[in-house]
């Protein structure tokens, strides 16, 4: 399920079947052009990952709105991320996965109330090229399997 009118109305009717949530964590930093470019690319990549995984398990996964933050202040963000997670676990959701390409979250994974799924991403590239597409497909099937092991 995605965060749009149609899917959310379906979710509201069949809450008991949907117990898994994916929150993409998307950093940005406008200080350096190079970093901005990389982060913009990685944002596209991460959204693609999340939406492909959602497509596979549409009936059990809800894709949350993306969580955006300014990079480099992960410690301060922990509380806010946990606040988001708290909102969703109340609905209830049993499994919360935080998708990210930002490896700084790994050190804080114990403080977070959701499961960090760190994806080794690409620095840059062309999302339309067939190599990148097969790389994404391969990874998506592995992430999907990983999520299934939690169910």
């Amino acid at each position, binding site marked *: 399920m995605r965060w749009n009118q149609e899917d959310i109305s379906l979710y509201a009717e*069949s809450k008991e*079947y949907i117990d898994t949530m994916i929150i993409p964590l998307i950093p940005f930093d406008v200080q350096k052009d190079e970093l901005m470019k990389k982060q913009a690319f990685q944002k596209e990549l991460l959204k693609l990952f999340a939406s492909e995984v959602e*497509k*596979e*398990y*549409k*009936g*059990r996964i809800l894709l949350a709105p993306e969580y955006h933050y300014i990079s480099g202040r992960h410690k301060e963000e922990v509380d806010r991320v946990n606040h988001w997670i708290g909102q969703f676990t109340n609905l209830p959701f049993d499994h919360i996965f935080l998708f990210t390409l930002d490896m700084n979250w790994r050190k804080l994974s114990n403080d977070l109330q959701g499961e960090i799924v760190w994806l080794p991403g690409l620095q840059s590239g062309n999302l339309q090229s067939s190599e990148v597409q097969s790389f994404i497909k391969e990874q998506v099937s592995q992430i999907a399997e990983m999520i299934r092991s939690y*169910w």
Partner: protein
Amino acid sequence: MSDKKQVSRRQFLNYSLTGVGGFMAAGMLAPMVRFAIDPVLQPSAAGKFKAVVEESELTSEPQRFTWKINQKDGWYESEVEKSAWVYKKENGEIVALSPICTHLGCTVDWASNEEYPNQFYCPCHGGRYKKNGVNIPNTPPTAPLPLYEHKVEEGMLYLGQAKSRGSGV
């Protein structure tokens, strides 16, 4: 005076003016008629078939094939990947099933659960379907998997729209 029937000057002018006028009228009307019936002549997007796989690759075991279609969805026109589980029955009939679970839309897999080796299995809520796509009672789905329209031309399998099969079992 000869006794052959002569065309008088008046008649000749009448004929030629009618002829030329007729051509001019036709010249003006033809595009108008074409515009008026244009929507009827548009190929309907619904009936579009796409080449998916060579018929010789099909087996009696369902295999998953993917292909791309252009989909216009409100604001966006995008390329969407479609997929189908395709197999051949013993009598040679081709069956192409949509892999979208009729419960809440997950993707079903053939024989992915060891307990049900001859069924389609949905990993989300354990929905199951027989090989012909009919849902198994007492599992979450309430309708069979949709069937794709198909045709074979020159050894190539073409798939069209997936057609829902009602409420099933």
